[in-house]
C-alpha cells in the first residue's frame, strides 16, 4: 500500500502516543495524528482542544479549533480562561503539539512575523496558545513539513521557546518542562541531542535519503550515530487514517 509523505508524518506522530497521554491538540496534522492514535492503538488517550473541550472523541476531524463536533463528543467543555489557567498552566497536559512557519536547530518556533516586527515582510497569524503550550506541557511534539524556508538558520522572531541556544537554557529560565522532544516531519523524525539539545535525525522515512533531508534544512543538519528507518504505515493505519479523512470530507462538504 503506497502512502504520501504527509500520511507518513501523521502515522509516525500517532505511533508516539499512548493511552496515558493527555494531549493538547492543534488543528491539522496534530489533530489527525491524535485521532489516528485514538482510533488504533490508544483508544483511551485524552484529547483536549484549546477551545475548552475536555476528553473529546470526534468522529470526524474538526476544521477549526472550536467545531461543534468537538463539544458534542467532549466529556465537558470549559471556558477559555479556565482552559489556560486550570488545564494548561495547571500542568495537566502531558504532550502539547505545535507547528510553525519556521523552526531553528534548537526547536524554537516562529509563527509571528517574517522581517522586522514593526515593518514586516510577511505578517503571520501570531502565537495564539503556542508560547504557553511550549512552556507548560510536559513535553512538546512538533510536526512540520521540511523545506529551507521552514527549517531556517536563524529565526526573525521567537514565538515559542524550544531549547533556546542549547542545552540548559530552559532550566536557566526556570522552565521545568522538557520542551520539544520530537520533531516529526514528512521526511524524518528528529530529536534533540542529549548533550547539546540540537535537533538530530533519528529515523528516516522509507525511501528517504540523508541528502533529501539535508536539502530540506537551511542549517547543516546532524544525524544521530544510528539512524533507523521509520517503519512504513501499516495497511490498518492507512485504512483508519483514510477513513477518517473520508468521513471528514463528507461531513464538512469540503476538502480536509
Amino acid at each position, binding site marked *: 500500500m503506497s502512502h504520501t509523505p504527509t500520511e507518513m508524518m501523521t502515522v509516525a506522530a500517532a505511533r508516539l502516543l499512548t493511552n496515558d497521554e493527555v494531549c493538547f491538540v492543534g488543528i491539522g496534522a496534530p489533530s489527525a495524528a491524535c485521532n489516528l492514535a485514538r482510533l488504533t492503538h490508544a483508544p483511551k488517550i485524552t484529547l483536549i482542544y484549546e477551545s*475548552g473541550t475536555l476528553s473529546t472523541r470526534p468522529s470526524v476531524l474538526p476544521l477549526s479549533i472550536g*467545531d461543534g463536533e468537538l463539544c458534542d463528543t467532549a466529556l465537558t467543555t470549559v471556558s477559555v480562561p479556565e482552559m489556560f*489557567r486550570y488545564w494548561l498552566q495547571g500542568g495537566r497536559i502531558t504532550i502539547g503539539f505545535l507547528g510553525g512557519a519556521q523552526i531553528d536547530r534548537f526547536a524554537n518556533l516562529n509563527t509571528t512575523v517574517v522581517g522586522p516586527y514593526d515593518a514586516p515582510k510577511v505578517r503571520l*497569524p501570531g502565537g*495564539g496558545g503556542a508560547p504557553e503550550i511550549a512552556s507548560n506541557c510536559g513535553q512538546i511534539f512538533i510536526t512540520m513539513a521540511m523545506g529551507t524556508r521552514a527549517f531556517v538558520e536563524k529565526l526573525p522572531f*521567537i514565538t515559542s*521557546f524550544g531549547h533556546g541556544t542549547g542545552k540548559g537554557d530552559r532550566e536557566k529560565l*526556570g522552565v521545568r518542562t522538557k520542551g520539544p522532544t520530537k520533531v516529526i516531519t514528512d521526511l524524518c523524525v528528529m530529536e534533540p541531542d542529549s548533550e547539546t539539545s540540537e535537533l538530530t535525525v533519528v529515523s528516516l522515512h522509507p525511501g528517504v535519503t540523508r541528502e533529501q533531508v539535508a536539502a530540506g534544512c537551511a542549517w547543516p543538519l546532524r544525524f544521530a550515530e544510528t539512524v533507523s528507518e521509520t517503519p512504513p504505515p501499516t495497511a490498518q493505519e492507512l485504512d483508519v487514517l483514510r477513513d477518517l479523512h473520508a468521513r471528514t470530507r463528507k461531513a464538512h462538504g469540503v476538502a480536509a
Partner: protein
Amino acid sequence: MAEFLSLAQGIEAVLSDGCSVAMEGFTHLIPHAAGHEAIRQGRKRLTLIRMTPDLVYDQMIGMGCAEKLVFSWGGNPGVGSLHRLRDAVENGWPNKLELEEHSHAAMANAYEAGAANLPFAVFRGYKGVDLPKVNPKIKSVTCPYTGEVLATVPALRPDAAIIHALKADREGNVLLEGIVGVQKEAVLAAKRSLVTVEEIVDDFGERNANAVILPSWTVTAIAHVPGGAYPSYAHGYYKRGNDFYIAWDKIARERDTFAAWMKANVLEQGPEAFARYAEARKVAA
C-alpha cells in the same frame, strides 16, 4: 436591566467612534451580524480587541473602522491569512493599524482580571520568547512567597463588549452553551455590552443548575438577530459555513473584490440576511 433593541439601535447604544470594543467568540458564536451593522454605521478609529480576530475583524479593518487591534492569533482558521489585516499591517491600507499583540494565555487572563475588577493578571508565561520585546505592556511581578518572577498583563476593560448568544429570556437574561470562549468575561469586563441572540424565549426550560448565564443586570442591550453568528455557528441552531471561510480567502485577497463583496453583502443588506444564511445550514432538530 438589559434593554431589548433592534440591532441598529443596539450598535448605536454601545459603539461610538474611537472606543474600544471586544467582539468575542472562539470559533463558535462570533457576532458577525453586529460587525456588519458597525460597518454600515460607519464607525471609525475603533480599538478592536479579540483573541482570535477572523473574518469579521478582517472586514471591519478593510472597511477602515479600526485604528488598533489587540489580539493573540489573527488568521482564517484552517485556511490561511487574513488578507485585509495583512494589507493594513504590511501596507497601511486603508489606514495604518497599530497592533498590540499577546498570547492566548495572556488575553484570557486579561479578560478574567477585567471581569474580576483587578488592574492586572498574573500568569506563568512568555518565558524565552520575543513578544515582551515588542509589547511594553508585558511586565512581571515577583511572588512574595517563592521569589518566582511571573508575567503580568493589564486587565482588559473594553468600552464595549459585543457577543452572540443562543437565547435570551424576556427578563433579558442570556444563555450560552457549548464552546463558551471568553464571552462571559468580556461582557463582565466591559463598560457596556450588546448581546445578539438566536431566540427570545419565555423560559430557558430544563437546564443544568450551573449553565453559563449572564443575568439581565450585567447586559446593556439585547438584539434578536437569528443567524447573527453566520458564517460562525450557533450550537444546536446551524452549522459553521466552512465553505464561506474558504471562499473568503479569494474575496479578501484583492482590494477591489473585497470592496465589491462588502457593498453587495454588507452595505446593501440588513440583519435579516443572516436568518437566510442560517436557515440554509440549520441543524436537524
